[in-house]
């Protein structure tokens, strides 16, 4: 496996993200029109990310830490193309597999079978390719007996497993994990960690957002510490986590 350490897979170049919130929430056109006439629309600018600069190379496992509201989720959204930066730019090379939160991208009225196709195409795959991988996905998720039942009859664990199985069936170039380890039974957690490790050994870049510092320390070699939308530190995980813990104490 040849790993490219010259060209970064993810490159943040002065990325800033601004949420522009009206001073008081204006949710209706009527209200907007009235305020517009009275010229009384005030906005509060909230910068969720400010001038973020860092690079991630192939095969790296990067942890993203910081307290709630530090901008971790926004950072992942910028990478997975959901939010376009307000200022600066981001370059991403390769297939990004985002692990969606529980149930996102599923239709509870449709069967498991139909949902595998629907969810797969939401992730950007072709129906033809999903057909080829279908059996493997069902097998990994362990839902063979329920495949033709509507999703609303599934347990939370089953839906989590199915989501993971679809998103990670083929090796992505970049895997984005947002606190997924909180769910699923122990056996499935082992199975999914094994799969993630196999991806890593084959050069997949992994971004992990977690509050579990021990997990981040044991899994990641590099850590990005965000606070109030600013990168407080980027570097080797042990160093950054120690610094982080010192300020929290």
């Amino acid at each position, binding site marked *: 496996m040849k790993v490219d350490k010259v060209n970064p897979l993810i490159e943040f170049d002065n990325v800033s993200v601004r949420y522009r919130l009206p001073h008081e929430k204006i*949710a209706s056109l009527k209200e*907007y029109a009235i305020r517009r006439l009275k010229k009384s629309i005030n906005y509060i600018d909230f910068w969720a990310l400010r001038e973020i600069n860092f690079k991630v190379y192939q095969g790296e496992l990067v942890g993203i830490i910081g307290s709630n509201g530090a901008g971790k989720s926004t950072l992942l959204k910028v990478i997975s193309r959901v939010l376009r930066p307000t200022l600066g730019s981001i370059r*991403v090379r390769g297939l990004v597999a*985002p692990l969606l939160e529980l149930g996102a*991208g599923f239709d509870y009225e449709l069967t498991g079978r139909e949902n595998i196709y629907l969810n797969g195409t939401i992730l950007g795959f072709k129906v033809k390719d999903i057909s080829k991988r279908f059996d493997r996905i069902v097998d990994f998720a362990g839902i063979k007996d329920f495949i033709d039942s509507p999703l609303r009859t599934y347990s939370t664990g089953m839906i989590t497993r199915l989501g993971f199985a679809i998103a990670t069936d083929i090796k992505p170039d970049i895997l984005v994990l947002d606190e997924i380890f909180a769910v699923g039974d122990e056996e499935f957690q082992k199975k999914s960690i094994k799969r993630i490790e196999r991806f890593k050994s084959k050069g997949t870049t992994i971004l992990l957002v977690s509050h579990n510092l021990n997990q981040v320390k044991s899994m990641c070699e590099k850590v990005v510490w965000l606070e109030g939308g600013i990168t407080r530190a980027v570097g080797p995980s042990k160093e950054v986590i120690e610094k982080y813990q010192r300020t929290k104490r």
Partner: protein
Amino acid sequence: MIEYDSAVRRSPLFSELGELLRYRDLLYLMTLANIKRRYKRSTLGIIWTLLGPLLTMTVLTIAFSNLFRFSLINYPIYLLSGLIFWNLFTQTTQDAMNSMIWGGDLLRRIYIPRTVFPLTAIISGLINLFLNLIPLAIIMLIFKHAFRPALFFIPFAILLVAMFALGIGLILSTMAVFFLDVIYLYQVFISAWFYLTPIIYPRDIFPARYVWYMNLNPLYNLLEIFRAPIYLGLIPGTNTILAATSWALVSLLIGFWVFTKKADEFAYRI
């Protein structure tokens, strides 16, 4: 290798078309899911689609046939073709808005081309329309209404109506993302629009000097090109076709432009 660079921005309109092509399988499956959702839970689902317009037609025929009896022969056919047209337009534009709000959850979590939602609404609406044409054909047989060659013009008419509805749907979806009350305002608006369009009453109900103003209502000419081949067995006049085509093109272009220009802000707002 897939590359994404937020700094590279082609015209949003054209890049969206490219993305749609890439995600065409998603469009297909979302439409399928939409149709299934509509018909799955009730076995009467499809039958309702067929019966719905028929029931409305029966009620309105009983209510209005005395009023318009002398000016319109085969009033039920006149009425039913108008109602089918109206259903296509209102259902798709409303669905487009609602699907955008429904899909908001998804848009905040993952990237997909945003036009998928309004397009799904249009395609589902068209499938519904074809189902609606069945009861219309039955009524035409019952009333011994002639099926004329002008009917071959209908696909083109449907295309124009769909283009117009998609354009309006795109504009409304964009507005609904920012202002939720647009959904309710639109409901009020379309009930007024219904009575301003000659769906249940004859076109010549207005005095001749006001007829010109009817051209300002886009649905006036769009309805005419859909209904004339069915009801009159005639291909509509050149002016009517030109007016309908212009409305369809203008609506679609503006709708697509507004929507794609604002699409990047959706995830921030929904």
